[in-house]
């Protein structure tokens, strides 16, 4: 919500008299760090046996390739005693084909990389299904963009947090909390100016933890239009839930999380 308001402030204000230009800036380079993207996703009504975990390292800011982190040992343990050892399918991409997801079960991730052991714990969270998509064509500032509202009903009296993805040629994500919408039918909001009628798109909702919601909240503010300017928030180092148990100072970026998901296909009207 806040991001939204700030965005409006910035757009309405700067559109008055601003001028943007790409410039050359010399940047210092920081030491590479491990980045772990371990999102276990289980779509409703599927077995959820195929799971991928992605390891990479940080790169200089103007580099166009993100280097893969190779040669790690990646395992996930369930609270009930199951162990899933992931195999490296291609550099930095680790796969398991017989994963057993279970709602509200707690899992632990263990990664051995370059002599350090990284660990993280998270619970597989359920999600409310997506119900319907309502499309209108008067969105955006000019009132000419396509608008999509992906409706779902928030379960009452418990705190829920959502990650909603909108797939078209690209991927955009939105995050929601139920602070102001607890127990109501509510929607995720997307707009797009390029899509034309007949195109196939998709919407996916995921149940996420409060910590992961906050993590994404900060990530998105950092990934936004950058830093500086009167309405910008302070840039910061965003820490996920992964701990380097061997050498805590050499921490890894990224997050280990498990979510139930629901998907809706949609054809642009």
């Amino acid at each position, binding site marked *: 919500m806040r991001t939204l308001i700030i965005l*409006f402030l910035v757009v309405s204000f700067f559109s008055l008299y*601003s001028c*943007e230009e790409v410039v050359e800036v010399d940047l210092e380079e920081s030491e590479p760090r491990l980045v772990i993207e371990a999102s276990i996703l289980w779509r409703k009504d599927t077995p959820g046996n195929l799971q991928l975990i992605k390891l990479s390292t940080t790169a200089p800011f103007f580099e166009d390739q993100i280097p893969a982190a190779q040669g790690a040992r990646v395992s996930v343990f369930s609270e009930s005693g199951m162990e899933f050892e992931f195999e490296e399918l291609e550099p930095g991409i680790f796969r398991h084909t017989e994963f057993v997801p279970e709602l509200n079960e707690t899992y632990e991730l263990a990664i051995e990389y370059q002599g350090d052991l990284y660990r993280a714990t998270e619970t597989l969270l359920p999600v409310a299904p997506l119900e319907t998509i309502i499309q209108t064509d008067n969105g955006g500032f000019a*009132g000419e963009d396509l608008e999509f509202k992906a409706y779902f009903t928030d379960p009452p009296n418990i705190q829920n947090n959502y990650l909603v993805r909108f797939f078209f040629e690209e991927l955009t994500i939105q995050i929601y909390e139920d602070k*102001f919408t607890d127990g109501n039918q*509510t929607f995720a909001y997307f707009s797009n100016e390029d899509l034309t009628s007949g195109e196939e798109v998709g919407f996916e909702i995921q149940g996420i933890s409060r910590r992961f919601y906050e993590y994404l909240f900060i990530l998105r503010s950092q990934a936004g239009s950058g830093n500086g300017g009167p309405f910008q928030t302070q840039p910061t180092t965003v*820490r996920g839930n992964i701990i380097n148990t061997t050498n805590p100072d050499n921490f890894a970026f990224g997050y280990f999380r498990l979510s139930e998901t629901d998907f809706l296909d949609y054809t642009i009207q």
Partner: protein
Amino acid sequence: MKKILSTLFIFLFSYLHAQEKITLNGVVRDAANNETLYGVNIIFPDLNSGTITNEYGFYSLKIPAGTHQILVSYLGYQTLSQEIKINKSESLNFNLKESSEILEEVVITENFERVNIRSPEMSVTKLEINTIKNLPVVFGEVDIVKSLLLLPGISNAGEGSSGFNVRGGAVGQNLILLDEATIYNASHLFGLFSVFNPDAIKNLKLYKGGIPAKYGGRVSSVLDIYQKDGNSKNFHANGGIGIISSRLLVEGPIVKDKGSFLIGGRSSYAHLFLKLTDNPNSAYFYDLNTKLSYRLNDRNSLLFSGYFGRDIFNISESFKNTYGNAVFNLRWNRVLTDNIFTNLSVIYSDYYYGLTLDFVEFNWNSGIKNLNLKYDFNQLLNDQLSIDYGIQSTYYEFNPGEIEPSTASSGINYFKLTKKYALENALYLSVDHQFSEKFSMTYGVRFSSFFRLGQDSLSLYEDNKPVLFNPDFGIYEEAEPIDQRILPKNKVEKTYTNWEPRLSIAYSFNEVQSVKLSYNRMSQYLQLISNTNSPTPLDVWTPSGRYIKPQLLDQIAAGYFQNFKKESYTLEIEGFYKKAKNGLDYIDGANLVANNAIERVILHGKSRAYGMEILFRKNTGNFTGWLAYTLSKSEQKTQGRTPLESGINNGNWYDTGFDKTHDISLTGSYTLGKKWLLNTNFIFQTGLPTTFPTGQYTIESLIIPVYSPRNSNRLPNYHRLDLSATYTPTRKLNSTYSSSWNFGIYNAYNRKNAVSLNFRNNEDTRINEAVRLSLFGIIPSITYNFKF
């Protein structure tokens, strides 16, 4: 503290038994319109004594009976010089005539600047409204706050940012008073313009240091602005037509020489053109200044002032935003006895912020209201001592926010953040003490107290800690409340009290050279919750209480002052050091909007600032102007509360977002013949601190930059040149109508100054790039001003 007080009283009473003299008092006014004049010098050259009028034009002084020469002088007015014979205490009012427009004809008596040299007052910035009106400004919009930025020690967080920073202090640390009423947000259009209509303003003073005991409640500075009273002799109107806004002000007598009214309005009108072009968006502002003055008799006057301003944004009917201040003030000026002047004020002030987001179907509003009662006294004790004392009490009601569905089908639940209440009181005593011709002091103390009152529900936390540190991930997290406390609002939840000593000393070597020293301690009980470099209109003010401590600041300043060539040139050099504690810093990812538990996302930090300011002015001749240079540093630090905690930025000092190492402005004004006045500014400033990325990674298909330590990089240096010319045609004989044209060029050599450097992934090429955002290129402007 007791020591300070007792010393103060000893000083005071040891001088009470000076010889009996008679008291002379009165009010100095403008002969043309009866406006009272503030800061007029009243001097008895043969007695070597004098005084200046207070903010209501009142003066009083003690002299021996007899026949004396008296000089009454004020910048821009003809000096009045006459011989008076007085044998008993009496009232003597003076009316000064404005000198003609050309400054060189102003008779500056040799006493004019002397008071400045001798008075302990320092670190004070005064700008004449006429000077402000001639400065070149963006879009030709005369702006008090933007003009102040041309003086040393005053800056802002970049072009287009709101508010101003004084001596490295935050924007929320400035006390802004309009006719003694607090203004909570002094900006229109997110900081493009300030809310003060220059036509309605009589004078202004900005205290950067050595702040008198009379003022309190903000730690960094006091901007004290007074509106005109209105002309009680004749009806007059003046106004202007500019690119962005137009102004009209009407004033005149209600009862001739006794009562007057003033009403001034200003509005922008770009939105009207947008409407003509069928553009559904609009953005505009307006404000209204009113004043009613009535002189009941020689000893009593009533003044009513009002201000109402709003900004309105409307984007495609789906985003509607309204905000602004409203202020009402009733004052009663009373001359109690020959040597005591009092002012009783009742002030109501209100800041409102409202927002409607139609596409997510909700309305939002927040605000702050206060009712303020003040009783101030000026008392002359003898020719060496005068005292100011008074009492102030303010009741606050805070509405941190209310959210409601805007449509029946909205998925938003009604939600109201808990309203907060507080009472702030202060007592002060300040002594002006002239020890000798060379040595004078102002010393005083302010005792402030703050009572946070009960509210519907207040969260309680384990160990009283609303913010927890998670050592595993090295991050701060919000604590869960363990209980709720419900207390009626007539009960006190938390009390803070502070003694705030104030001191200024002046020693003059001779008539043209002096050194001054000042110290002030300030406390601030309301904090502006803002996590961006520059405040936004939706930032909320929040009171101190159980979890938020009041800010405390100490400042020392020392200065050297000299006049050259009969006050044709003046030089002011000051150095300052200040440190403050309990400023707010925010944990990573702190969500400040609609947050009912702000305490869970804040940490208390420290700040410090130090620097040197030089102001060299040329005051007379066809060419006048000044060179202002500030060399300074402004830093902040938020350490962990225990050694295990990381603090913010690893607990290290870092530059504030508005730190500028060098800040130079050169302002010149040249009178060309009788019709033209040419003005120019040149500004150079070190680029503002910013944070550059040192790497990148991807998560959830977002490209995330890895950043260097906070504010460890700089934007490119800022510089620009502005020009303006004012043409005043000769007034037709027998006509009261006069007019002038102002032509301006802002940023004459079209420098693309960076407001920010954004590092982002290009949407089309998918390559990371650095983008410089610049705001104002070369902007010509034209304004037509009239008066009749």
